[in-house]
């Protein structure tokens, strides 16, 4: 039965289940052992599962991703961690030129069932090199799958689904969500996860406009929808959950109903996921249902600053979503 849990503990519960039920699963990453991970997610796992399966690595991100490729094509199920998603830049060859391509490039002779977990996003005062949201890059690469859980239950279920998938999957968690609380039903078997990679979810039905987001911005969209409701504006909130594959049909269906589209993410706008959502809508018949130009509310197009007020000015806040929605309704 469901209990309340934090997002971080929901991830930990998924890792525990994976380690218990599938002996091919092991974890590797920086300071995931005795330290428990920079955000405490893997706290205690070393004691439970031992150093063979909870592997502290040197500070070598390229090797962390590369070892996952090599271990996965030889039969294991690595779940590796990038301590901050910003450090994934050091592992791009292993992820993009290797993990994403081997299955295709070798004519289907290998599968690369690896998972990379990485916390992204800003709001912690860690500044430009520890606050990025890089999902757009990976959503652009054929061969990869990319999910970004927004809720406590999804933090659990999407990770299980990621490990079940025979392809390389990147799970981008959000630092600010780790402490968020919600209902969690811990699955008793890995296969019990109801999550399917590439399925978006309507978290709040509405009729006046469609609000699309993922990760932290799904939460902000829900907050904004609350405020809008008080003003008599009925916003439908869609949590994408996965940006590759992208469930554009759920968005199109909603737009056919509401006629208005507002897409948001924390990453800067240019060539981000929101652009893909807008494009996916306007190249379909859903275009004909649009009553007004679509809107994007994205992070300011600058690196993340340190100072609290500046950081707040860069990351979309729910007030901005409310304002944008109001304007959309006027148009």
């Amino acid at each position, binding site marked *: 039965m469901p209990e309340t849990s934090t997002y971080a503990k929901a991830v930990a519960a998924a890792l525990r289940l994976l380690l218990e039920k599938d002996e091919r699963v092991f974890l590797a990453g920086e300071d995931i052992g005795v330290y428990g991970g920079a955000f405490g997610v893997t706290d205690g796992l070393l004691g439970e599962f031992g150093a063979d399966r909870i592997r502290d690595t040197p500070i070598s991100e390229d090797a962390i991703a590369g070892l996952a490729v090599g271990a996965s094509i030889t039969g294991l199920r690595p779940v590796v961690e990038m301590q901050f998603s910003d450090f994934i830049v050091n592992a791009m060859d292993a992820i993009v030129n290797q993990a994403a391509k081997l299955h295709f490039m*070798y004519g289907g002779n290998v599968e690369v069932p690896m998972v990379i977990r990485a916390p992204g996003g800003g709001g912690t005062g860690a500044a430009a090199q520890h606050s990025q949201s890089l999902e757009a890059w990976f959503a652009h690469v054929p061969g990869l799958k990319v999910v970004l859980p927004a809720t406590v239950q999804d933090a659990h279920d999407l990770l299980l689904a990621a490990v079940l998938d025979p392809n390389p999957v990147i799970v981008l968690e959000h630092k600010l969500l780790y402490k968020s609380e919600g209902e969690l039903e811990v699955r008793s078997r890995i296969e019990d996860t109801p999550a399917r990679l590439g399925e978006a979810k309507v978290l709040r039905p509405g009729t006046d406009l469609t609000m699309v987001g993922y990760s932290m911005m799904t939460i902000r969209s829900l907050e904004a929808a609350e405020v809008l409701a008080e003003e008599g504006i009925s916003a439908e909130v869609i949590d994408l959950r996965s940006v590759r594959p992208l469930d554009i049909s759920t968005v199109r269906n909603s737009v056919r109903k509401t006629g208005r589209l507002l897409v948001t993410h924390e990453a800067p706008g240019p060539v981000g996921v929101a652009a893909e959502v807008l494009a996916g809508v306007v190249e379909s018949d859903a275009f004909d249902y649009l009553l007004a130009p679509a809107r994007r509310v994205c992070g300011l197009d600058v690196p993340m600053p340190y100072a609290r007020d500046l950081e707040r000015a860069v990351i979309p806040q729910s007030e901005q979503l409310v304002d944008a929605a109001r304007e959309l309704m006027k148009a």
Partner: protein
Amino acid sequence: MPRRDPTTPTGARSVLESMWTIRRFEEGLEELFTRGLLHGTMHLSIGQEAVAEGTCAALEDGDLITSTHRGHGHTLAHGADPMLMMAELLMKDTGYCRGRGGSMHIADVARGNLGANGIVAGSMTIAAGAALTQKLTGSGAVVVCFFGDGAANEGSFHEALNLSGVWDLPVVWLCENNQYGMSMSQDQSTAGGSVSGRASAYGMPGLVADGNDVTDVWSKVAEAADRARSGAGPTLVEAITYRYRGHSKSDRNLYRTADEIEDWRNLRDPLARFEGQAVEAGLLQPSDVDAAREAAKAAIRDAIAEAYRQPDATAHDLEEAAYA
């Protein structure tokens, strides 16, 4: 116990045939390329056959290798079917990669070849991961990672060797040092001047082998593989050899002299050398040598002929092909 032992009559015979097969295979490719039957470019290992064969002959069935952009020799020596390789290069649907990979990307996972790689040093961290699998599953198998002298200056080399050292992984780092990374001679590119000399930086032994002496490569690799199998961890083996052909098809060889190439070809050719040694040692009769050459020649001729007859690679099922 090693697959092929160049110090025994039967072993010597198959080692020689294997080296000739590699050479004939690549000479065959050159001809196909000149006749415009291939697409893209290719990297030939002619002159380096003893490294591929000496290494793979020293392995046991079940052992794994990762290969490079210059991987035809590794792939053949590890047991690949030349016909399926030719079919791949000729863009056939039955080729190893269904025509999707080509020269730089042949993998033969069934035989333990985890694949050639177009990225310099791109397979090194992969090899570390494959070795971790062997360690965690207690398979007893060893992973050999082929890489070039130029690859030793990539960050991946460093991270992979360090990781293999701290985790005592059952891997052999096989540096195929043909003395140039494209146009860069090793002394221009490599501070300290030696790849094997870097082994101590990772707390592992560094062995140097005469890469044009198949028996020397074989014994050094056997030693390193034993060490890995016994759980004692990784070894870095540097095999000194030489590439006769240009780096790839666009190479004008401006960075080295014709004399240098001729010297290696005439004085140190790995095939001629092994033939001489084996006959002198009484392991092979001149007739065995001829037979080995003939067998290799015929095998490649037949492989090409059969590869021609294969159905062309098809685009009809590409759409979904990026995902398993």
